[in-house]
C-alpha cells in the first residue's frame, strides 16, 4: 500500500514539473513549486515508512516551514518589486 502511495506522489511530481515548465505565467510556476514542496514532504514520509527509517520526518518539517518562505518571497517581490518594503509604507491600492 505504501508503494502505491509512493507511486501516486511521484506521479504528482511529474505533473507538477510539467506545469512548472509549461506554465504561461510565473504564478503557475510558483503554484507548481509549492505543490512539489508538499509532494516532497509526503514522499519523504512514505519513503521513511517503506525503508523503516522514520527519522526522515525532521526533514519534512524543515520543508514545510521553509516552503512558505520561498513562496512568500517570490510573491512579495511580484507585488512590490522589492523585498525590503513593508506594507505600511505603501499607498492605498487594490
Amino acid at each position: 500500500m505504501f508503494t502505491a502511495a509512493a507511486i501516486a506522489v511521484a506521479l504528482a511530481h511529474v505533473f507538477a514539473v510539467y506545469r512548472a515548465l509549461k506554465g504561461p505565467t510565473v504564478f503557475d510556476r510558483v503554484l507548481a513549486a509549492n505543490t512539489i514542496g508538499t509532494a516532497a514532504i509526503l514522499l519523504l514520509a512514505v519513503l521513511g515508512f517503506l525503508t523503516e527509517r522514520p527519522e526522515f520526518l525532521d526533514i519534512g518539517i524543515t520543508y514545510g516551514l521553509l516552503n512558505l518562505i520561498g513562496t512568500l518571497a517570490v510573491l512579495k517581490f511580484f507585488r512590490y518589486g522589492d523585498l525590503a518594503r513593508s506594507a505600511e509604507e505603501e499607498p492605498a491600492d487594490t
Partner: protein
Amino acid sequence: MKLDLILRVATKLLVPFILLFALYVQFHGDYGPGGGFQAGVIAAAMVILYAITYGLEPAKRAVPPAVAQAMIPLGVLIFAGTGVATMLLGDNYLAYNALDHHNPVHGQHLGILIVEFGVLVTVAGTMVAVFYTFAGRGR
C-alpha cells in the same frame, strides 16, 4: 492599510515555531539529522520571513544589523576558542577529551555541542547580514 493581514498574522504565529525548530535541529543534531549549519540557516530564514512580511525596518529593529555582523566573527571565535581552551587544559588543539577529565566521552559530547553552536552563530549571522545588505540596497 492592513494589506496583508492574513500574512501578518500567519507570520506572527509561525516565527516562534521556526526558531524552536531551529533550536531542536541544533541541540538534537547528535541524535537525528541536523547540526549547526542547518540550524543556522533555519534561524536566518526566520528573520528573512519576518523581514519579507513586515518590511525591512521592523526586522532591523528586532535583529539589528550590527548584531548580525558581530555574530559572524563571534562564531569563529567560539570554535577556535574551544581549541585554545583544550590546549590550555593540557591536550591537543580541538581534542575535546580534556573538557571533562573524569569522563572523556562527556567531554567529547560537550565539545561537539559548543563547536556546533559556534557554527550556528556564524552561519546565521552571515545569512542575515548578507540578506540585509542585498535587500537594503537601492532604497
